[in-house]
């Protein structure tokens, strides 16, 4: 039955995760971790999240996860988005979804268990200098030489590569029969031939250019042990990660609205709270409407995905809409806060940065509208 409310269990998930994040992740911490001398990651936070079981919410119990649904994970993302949890959470979960979609039992046992236990940070290396969304243009290739794979190429915008234990690298591959396709490789950061350079980003999150120079990998490092078969699993995991990111964005946007409501209710001019002016109220009503719409679209997408449906249109709709909503909410928040929100002391810019960063990742509005147009 159509029901947009949380179940009791989901409500509990939301309440506990909100409490936890509000206690553990202050704007001060977020700012600190973003400073160049920090790694962008908090090991103590990571350990606490692992202990509660949140790094394995969606990971099956047999791999030491909590065996929850994608919706449960979505709730966690929404709450994490409110407080701007460091992005190692998102990149590692994305990798876990890919491992879950493609990996063999052995690989899942190894890597998913490690992720659930907080023993592995990861990210997915996908985009390249001249190929952001179209793998046909990838130049990173893997060649089979005897029983080894030799990986060569360069990936960009790789989230948290500097901290990753293993990265998942998507490359074009050619197997023994000369068949070409996409393959996902698990590449240890310490492997010989891996080098990286951090990029300087608007969102102050950590992304790197990662170079692979004749990196030798054995079959255990091929996700699923099969080559040229990663497309489908990749599409599934990418859709899941996109929908989850929409919930992260919704969480951030809702937090900005909450903070803005508080600000305009307390800030007095002309002897009254500025939040009593209709011009201000209407802006906020529009912001709330855009975010409620995003939230419904995002939960619809996550919910359908968790049932195993493809939900291509639903994911595209969610990302196209949420990207615009989160960003616009922060732009308007700056307008409503005036100078008070412009000074970094107010912390508002932290969300504004993240809004733009998330808008630009996993496809902008145009990309998703184009997908929708193709399905009209």
């Amino acid at each position, binding site marked *: *039955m*159509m029901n947009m409310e949380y179940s009791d269990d989901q409500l509990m998930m939301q309440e506990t995760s909100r409490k936890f994040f509000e206690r553990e992740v202050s704007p001060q911490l977020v700012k600190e971790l973003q400073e160049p001398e920090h790694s962008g990651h908090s090991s103590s936070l990571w350990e606490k999240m692992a202990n509660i079981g949140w790094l394995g919410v969606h990971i099956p119990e047999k791999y030491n996860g909590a065996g929850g649904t994608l919706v449960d994970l979505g709730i966690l993302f929404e709450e994490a988005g409110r407080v701007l949890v460091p992005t190692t959470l998102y990149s590692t979960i994305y990798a876990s979804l890919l491992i879950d979609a493609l990996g063999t039992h052995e690989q899942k046992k190894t890597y998913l268990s490690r992720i659930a236990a907080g023993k592995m940070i990861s990210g997915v290396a996908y985009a390249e200098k001249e190929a952001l969304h179209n793998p046909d243009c990838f130049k990173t290739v893997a060649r089979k030489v005897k029983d080894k794979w030799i990986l060569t190429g360069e990936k960009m915008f790789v989230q948290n590569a500097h901290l990753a234990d293993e990265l998942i690298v998507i490359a074009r591959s050619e197997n023994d029969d000369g068949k070409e396709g996409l393959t996902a490789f698990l590449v240890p950061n310490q492997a010989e031939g891996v080098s990286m350079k951090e990029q300087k980003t608007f969102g102050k999150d950590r992304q790197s250019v990662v170079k692979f120079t004749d990196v030798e990998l054995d079959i255990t490092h091929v996700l699923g042990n099969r080559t040229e078969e990663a497309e489908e699993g990749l599409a599934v995991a990418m859709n899941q990660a996109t929908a989850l990111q929409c919930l992260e964005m919704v969480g951030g946007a809702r937090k900005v609205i909450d903070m803005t409501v508080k600000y305009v209710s307390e800030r007095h001019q002309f002897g009254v709270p500025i939040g*009593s002016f209709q011009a201000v109220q209407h802006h906020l*009503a529009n912001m709330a409407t855009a975010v409620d719409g995003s939230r419904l679209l995002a*939960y619809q997408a996550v*919910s359908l995905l968790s049932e195993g449906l493809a939900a291509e249109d639903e994911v595209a709709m969610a990302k196209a809409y949420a990207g615009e909503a989160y960003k616009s909410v922060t732009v308007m928040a700056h307008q409503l806060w005036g100078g008070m929100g412009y000074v970094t002391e107010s912390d508002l810019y932290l969300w504004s940065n993240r809004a733009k960063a998330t808008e630009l990742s996993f496809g902008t509005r145009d990309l998703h509208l184009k997908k929708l147009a193709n399905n009209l």
Partner: protein
Amino acid sequence: MEFHLTKEQLAWKQEVRNFLKEVITPELLAEVERNKRGKDGPLERNYRKQISEKGWYSMHWPKEYGGLEMSAMDYLIFNEEVAYMGAPFISNIGPSIVAPSLFKFGSEENKRKWLPPIKNNEFDFALGYSEPNSGTDLASLQTSAVLDGDEWVINGQKVWNSFGHRSTHQWLAVRTDPSAPKHRGISMMIVPMDAPGVTIVEQKTWGGHRTNEIFFDNVRVPKANLIGEVNRGWLILTTALDHERVVMGSSGRTQRNFEDLVKFCKHTVIDGELLINKPEIRMKLAELKVELEVARLFGYRAASMIDLGKDISSEASMMKVFATELRTKVSDYGMQILDLYGQLNKDDDLAPLQGELEQQYRLAPFHRFGGGTNEVQRNIVAQRGLGLPRR
């Protein structure tokens, strides 16, 4: 959380659609169009009779009042289908504004007297709310009712009285205590249109639908026509308005317009190119598709919240603003896609989509300001939804 209609709801949707397919005939639509400014004709009366015989006027009423006790979701599905199929308008005023007010505030005598004829579609109502000087500030209304023995004597003027010319009764807001603060001196009563002293004058609209001015000159109605308590009408009136918003916010018609527009673009070549292949059109259609999905989800959210027994005031307002503004966007952009053809109205044989888009473009403002203007709705979202201070 779940985002599917149940099997039963899907079956219900199909049942309504099948029924409407059967009863909507070209003759019926032609008659409705012909009589737009006058009384309903025999085909339209028969159409409504068929709906009433199915019990659908009172589908959402409790069983104790003879209703089918169907859910708000079922009711929304019904309204969406009616709009989607372009069925002749089915007034919701009696069954969804007057009747729920009677359930909640009416005396036993009120209920006995008024509910059966509403259920059987014998009585049709018009909303006697707005006045020349009381629109958005409805509580300032001046039409008065004074008790004289066993009768109320009513004097004043109402405007934007849509359906007044084809209704049997007015659901009238009157001032019964001029000395009380403005919200505390209003009462609700039912006034038969054939009572001596009632005069009705047509007001034409840009949207092409008829509305009316209505004058009350010493109109006398029995004391028992007052609904609920005297001077407590404001509560009744505002309770009913929330419901009206959910209906105003239905996006069924806009969804249909969009689908027809996509179909048109897939089959129409202009300047050597299929419209659907034009990149600018594709992107705009995709954008509208996303917003239609949001409107649909807002509707389902409001209905499911009602079914869960939750307060929906700010969600209903959000839904209403979103859906009504989308109506303008779809018809506005649709007309642009049609380019020069966009200006052909329904009377022209070559009008694409039977001129539906230009009609919706003219009808859209009514939806944006009717049922509480979108500015007031935004205040409600801000104040009741977000808790912002009032002035």
